[in-house]
């Protein structure tokens, strides 16, 4: 469909055709990652069995030639977990991409606007405070509500008297809200009597996919697909926003309204992801940057590439989290942050000029 533009010059990379290659490679990578991640564990399962089980469970085809235990492990334990990792990784990366454009700041990630600390307050209220309105879903619901409340709060605080919502105000309001909400979390945790509760809180705030079940997949998947489609539809406006505030206006983007809608969408997506996985750091920060290095800054390419890369990354991070110190589990956020921090420093050194100050 995309020929490289008419009078294409020699030197550069052939953008359009190169990109379909990148997408295909990422899709293949995701498929392979999901397969491999399902194989790995205390009991190893052959790749063929993995997909035979999946096909059987999903469509009813095939006569089982695997043990009931294998079927159970693949379909009830590993598959939901691996898929949830993929969905959450993709979701966080997509949100990170959009938020970096929305606040026009390379340091933005899904949690820059207070989402993680808000969700933590919700989670702690459930774990320590024993708030249980929604049975087994209490934790998820509380995290979602916490993240959303924090988001709304930040949006309201960032609004200037004139009704403008500038990127800098948003970030500052987000930082302030994060501090305040973290203080609430710390206070609640310190008041906890049971050390086991403290451990659960810590584990939750570092992110974990251990609680994955099929029921947890529906909503995040729907949110991911819907959200990504909406963002893709707006990719021209996202590009314009990245190019500059005034530029966006002169290119026909009504920036205030667009940014507000964008932030609400990102807030909902973040809340949904956090509700099923806790707060997994760094994925939403580093995936968009890495992807831009490969496919450029155009959101029509960055968004799908970031979704796929984020999915692959989190699938593998979760494999490390559950195998590195098995039979114990690590919070997956520890893995992403340990890998993320060095990456981030590298990025900073690479873009020395840009992060220093003026940058234009």
């Amino acid at each position, binding site marked *: 469909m995309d020929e490289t*533009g*008419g*009078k*294409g*010059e020699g*030197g*550069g*990379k052939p*953008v359009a055709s190169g990109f379909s290659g990148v997408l295909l490679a990422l899709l293949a990578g995701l498929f392979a990652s999901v397969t491999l991640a399902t194989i790995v564990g205390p009991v190893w399962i052959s790749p063929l069995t993995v997909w035979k089980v999946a096909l059987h469970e999903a469509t009813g085809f095939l006569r089982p030639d695997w043990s009931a235990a294998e079927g159970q492990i693949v379909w009830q334990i590993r598959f939901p977990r691996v898929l949830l990792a993929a969905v959450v990784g993709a979701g966080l990366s997509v949100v990170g991409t959009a938020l*970096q*454009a929305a606040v*026009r*700041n*390379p340091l933005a990630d899904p949690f820059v606007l207070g989402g993680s600390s808000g969700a933590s307050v919700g989670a702690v209220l459930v774990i320590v405070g024993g708030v249980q309105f929604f049975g087994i879903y209490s934790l998820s619901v509380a995290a979602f509500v916490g993240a959303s409340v924090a988001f709304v709060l930040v949006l309201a605080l960032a609004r200037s008297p004139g009704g403008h919502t500038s990127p800098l105000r948003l970030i500052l309001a987000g930082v302030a809200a994060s501090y305040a909400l973290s203080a609430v979390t710390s206070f609640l945790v310190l008041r906890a009597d049971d050390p086991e509760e403290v451990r659960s809180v810590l584990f939750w705030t570092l992110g974990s996919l251990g609680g994955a079940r099929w029921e947890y997949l529906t909503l995040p998947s729907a949110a991911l697909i819907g959200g990504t489609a909406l963002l893709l*539809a*707006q990719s*021209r*406006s996202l*590009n*314009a926003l*990245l*190019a*500059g*505030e*005034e*530029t966006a*206006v*002169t*290119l*026909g*983007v*009504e920036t205030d309204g667009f940014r507000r809608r964008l932030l609400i969408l990102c807030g909902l997506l973040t809340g949904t992801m956090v509700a099923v996985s806790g707060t997994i750091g760094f994925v939403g920060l580093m995936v968009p940057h890495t992807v*831009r290095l490969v496919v*450029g*800054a*155009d959101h029509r390419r960055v968004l799908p590439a970031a979704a796929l890369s984020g999915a692959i990354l989190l699938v593998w991070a979760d494999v490390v989290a559950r195998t590195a110190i098995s039979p114990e589990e690590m919070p997956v956020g520890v893995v992403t942050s340990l890998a993320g921090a060095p990456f981030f420093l590298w990025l900073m050194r690479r*873009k020395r000029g*840009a*992060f220093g100050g003026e*940058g*234009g």
Partner: protein
Amino acid sequence: MRLDVENIVWGADGRKILRGVSLEVGSGEVVGLIGPNGSGKTSLLRCVYKVLKPQAGLISLGEEDVLRSSVRRMARRTAVVPQETPGEFDFAVREIAAMGRSPHKGLFERETAEDREIVDDSLSRVGMLPFAERQFSTLSGGEKQKVLVARALAQKARLLVLDEPTNHLDVGHQLEVLGLVRGLGVSALAALHDLNLAALFCDRIYVLSGGEVFASGTPDEVLRPELIERVYGVASEVRIHPATGKPHVAFLPESLRPRPGPRPDGQEGERGARRSGGASP
């Protein structure tokens, strides 16, 4: 397309920046906006391209009420070459130019062959097609400016607004960029610092001072030593240059000031003709 600005008032934080500015740009006319820093040039342009909302006044482009129509609608008619350039996030040159198509595209609409043709054509008109795949940040100031002009061209607008388009450019690029704008045949409104460039490339000039139009007219009507003295507080000589046929301003440093005195009084028109050599008493 004809632009009419009537009595625009705009201010922020209790300070009036524009105090009832009126100007017009005729169809196909290139109009320069000059004036010292803080005189309101940029604010006026921002009102025209809808980043600022004037507190009073009227702006119309053709039959259209600029202040009442949507940002998107106006972006199809007015293209802007701004001062700011994309910062932290790096786009390829072609991607920057292609942004000019975005006000014309719907949500899920793909880039068509026609769009690509327009983008390529715009880039080649500014001589930047060979740089199409380069990263914008790797370009020189002049090249960047030309790419931004290409983006404005790709927008296919009927009015071009330029805010100090020659800032940071060397002489060659200054002449090139303004010559390009001149040759497009669209109406253009440009804020300019360099009075000689304004004289060379503008059909008419408006002088802003303290948020008001101080004077307006053709370059040789406006660019006079007494006006330059009053608006900029600088002594100068103005001659009609034999080669260009346009006024040429030479600024005089304090030491060469024709007659040491705070204000010119009652000797309009004379000063420009006086030779600076015989100035000291």
